[in-house]
């Protein structure tokens, strides 16, 4: 692997496998019973140092649950989690296809990472503000935001609450505790810390939860977030979704010689958890722990969600150009939907028939909603967004120079 780089002493890391290689991840041990113990949420941060390098898991592949972290969730809640994940995936698939048909400019799927967003949201209060990236649409689905409004945002049409201002998937749903997603990576980590500091200042017990991909942890904002959260004991959860890839760069470019991303929090005295991101129950349990810690004044927790991006980065890239085509299948941590399904069946709360039916339901429901959404316009037909709205919301009030520009724009029509 270091063959080429040894042309000089300058070392450049490379992923273990590239297109043409046969990926073999047997070296990645999937811990079965080695899940670290669950300390008290208000424990000293040192008690979570081992959690930064181990992996919190609840579900075995056979559906059994083991260890300290088994959350108390009713079968109904688990079934809701399962449905939310399936709905998220169905929506992703539909939107991806529609983008290919030119209905929208762009789309991003979260396939393989649905547990991270859905289980995380389920373990928070709806008034806990989340600062998501473009890959946590599951939060909105779980919190019951309007899927039609989400679709209309992607279509930039008359139903788009953002009136076409932003590119697809950069949603904003304040009422659902979903902060306006920025196109600039990383920036929201430190903003979430500020939001959390404001909650503390106001003596509220609300918390903030911020997301970044593992690749964007290299931005300064991630460092600022760890540092300020540590200094002011901000009530926040800082989530790193390690899905192994940053567009075409494998996680080693961001990780370097570091073993895990959770470990980046240890030097700041933050609580650090590393969780199997494909294990719905584990993500729920880890989030619940961190939320309780933050809410009770214990400060911030850095959670690394160890998962895998099963599809391309977005509609703009072809993953087979930089990683083996079958890597998603051989990735040893399975699929979050399959795994929760197996568990529910194992405990007798679900069966193949209901699952197949629900899968069909989700498809149909999404197709229906999409039909409705598309009626309000698409990029390929007409977006039905009034062009003049582009001058609004730059400032609270329209300044003179923009009024003049509106007049100039009229001359073009």
């Amino acid at each position, binding site marked *: 692997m270091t063959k080429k780089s040894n042309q000089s002493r300058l070392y450049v890391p490379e992923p273990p496998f590239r297109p043409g290689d046969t990926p073999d991840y047997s070296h990645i041990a999937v811990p079965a019973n080695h899940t670290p113990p669950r300390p008290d949420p208000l424990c000293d941060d040192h008690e979570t140092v081992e959690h930064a390098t181990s992996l919190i898991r609840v579900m075995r592949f056979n559906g059994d649950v083991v260890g300290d972290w088994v959350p108390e969730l009713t079968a109904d809640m688990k079934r809701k989690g399962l449905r939310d994940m399936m709905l998220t995936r169905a929506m992703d698939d539909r939107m991806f296809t529609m983008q290919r048909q030119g209905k929208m400019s762009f789309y991003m799927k979260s396939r393989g990472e649905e547990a991270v967003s859905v289980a995380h949201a389920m373990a928070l209060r709806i008034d806990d*503000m989340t600062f998501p990236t473009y890959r946590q649409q599951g939060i909105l689905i779980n919190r019951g935001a309007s899927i039609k409004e989400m679709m209309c945002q992607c279509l930039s049409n008359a139903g788009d*609450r*953002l*009136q076409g*201002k*932003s590119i697809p998937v*950069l949603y*904003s*749903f*304040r009422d659902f505790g979903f*902060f*306006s997603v*920025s196109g*600039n990576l990383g*920036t929201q*980590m*430190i*903003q*979430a*810390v*500020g*939001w*959390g*500091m*404001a*909650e503390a*200042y*106001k003596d509220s017990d609300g918390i*903030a939860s911020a997301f970044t991909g593992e690749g964007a942890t290299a931005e*300064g*904002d991630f*460092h*600022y*977030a760890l*540092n*300020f959260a540590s*200094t002011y004991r901000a009530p926040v959860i800082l989530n790193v979704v390690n899905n192994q890839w940053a567009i075409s760069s494998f996680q080693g470019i961001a990780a370097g010689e570091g073993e895990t991303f959770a470990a980046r929090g240890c030097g700041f005295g933050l609580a650090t958890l590393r969780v199997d991101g494909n294990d719905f129950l584990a993500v729920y349990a880890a989030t619940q722990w961190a939320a309780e810690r933050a809410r009770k004044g214990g400060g911030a927790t850095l959670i690394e969600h160890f998962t895998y991006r099963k599809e391309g980065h977005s509609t703009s890239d072809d993953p087979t150009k930089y990683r083996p085509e079958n890597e998603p299948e051989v990735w040893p941590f399975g699929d979050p939907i399959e795994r929760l399904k197996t568990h529910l069946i194992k405990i007798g709360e679900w069966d193949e028939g209901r699952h197949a039916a629900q899968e069909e339901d989700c498809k149909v429901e999404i197709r229906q909603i999409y039909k409705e959404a598309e009626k309000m316009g698409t990029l390929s037909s007409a977006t039905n967004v009034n062009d003049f709205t582009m001058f*609004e*919301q*730059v*400032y*609270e009030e329209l*300044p*003179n*120079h923009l009024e003049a520009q509106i007049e100039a724009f009229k001359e073009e029509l």
Partner: protein
Amino acid sequence: MANPVTKQMNMIEAIRDAMDVKMTEDSDVLVFGEDVGYFGGVFRATAGLQEKHGLHRCFDTPISEGGIVGIAIGMAANGLRPVAEIQFADYIYPGYDQIASEAARLRYRSNGEFSAPLTIRTPVGGGIYGGTTHSQSPEALFTHIAGLKTVIPSNPYDAKGMLITAIEDNDPVLFLEPKRLYNGPFYGDPHTPSVSWAKHELGEVPEGHYKVPFGKVRKINEGSDLTILAYGTMVWVAEAAAKAAGVNADILDLRSLLPLDIEAISESVKKTGRCLILHEATRTSGFGAELSAQVAEACFFSLEAPIVRVTGWDTPYPHAQEWAYFPGPKRVINGIRKVMGDI
């Protein structure tokens, strides 16, 4: 003036008083930045605020301008009114992305669902032998950013009234403080004894709450020979140079660069037919360029002579050569002569 009772203040005291007034009447107002807490800031602008309002309302931050602006955005979006200090404008760049990509964009991106009503205070300009990294005037790097307001007072009265306006504004405001004016007006000649605000009428600052609106120039002198557009330190240099050159100038203190009071500016230039633009920042792509373009667009047929820009040179701000760099009276007078057609 909103309030008859006044107190003689220098510019630092006026700025501090603005924060004190707002912190007293609105518990959502927080003040933070490097060394602003217990110490009260390297220029003393926040001295006493921590003791009076509490550690949690006026505090030190890590040395991270990006982090400072970042938490300010999160707090502002969550209903607070943060006032962040960047110790020197020369150090604002690590926070540039958070200002330009985030604070200025949040309202637009979310179509008004979220906004960032924050204020960033930072000292600008030279005149204290601060060299390349304690003297910069980066205003033009911010007036290009849609969604941001950029203002710069030239005296204690405006400083307090404008800072209160900034804190109450629902959009992000960059509040630039000409550090050379903190203790008194500066007429551009470092060799003459410095004047203090103590006896200056603009050092008479009303107590309590009052606002100076953005987007309105302050006319310092009514004249018919030419119009001089200036802001910050250069306002005082303009006054001195016009006197020395024996011209009768309309001198406009712009105060607010974005929004800009183009009405008052063009009215004046249409009257005088001549326009001199001053700033301390480097020339190329400085704010003087925008002023020159807008004045020409609005007053072309009234202009009797080319608009002249007198600025800092297109070099970093040197240390030993500070006064050769600074656009002092001589350079301004040459500019006046040029715009008057004498040379």
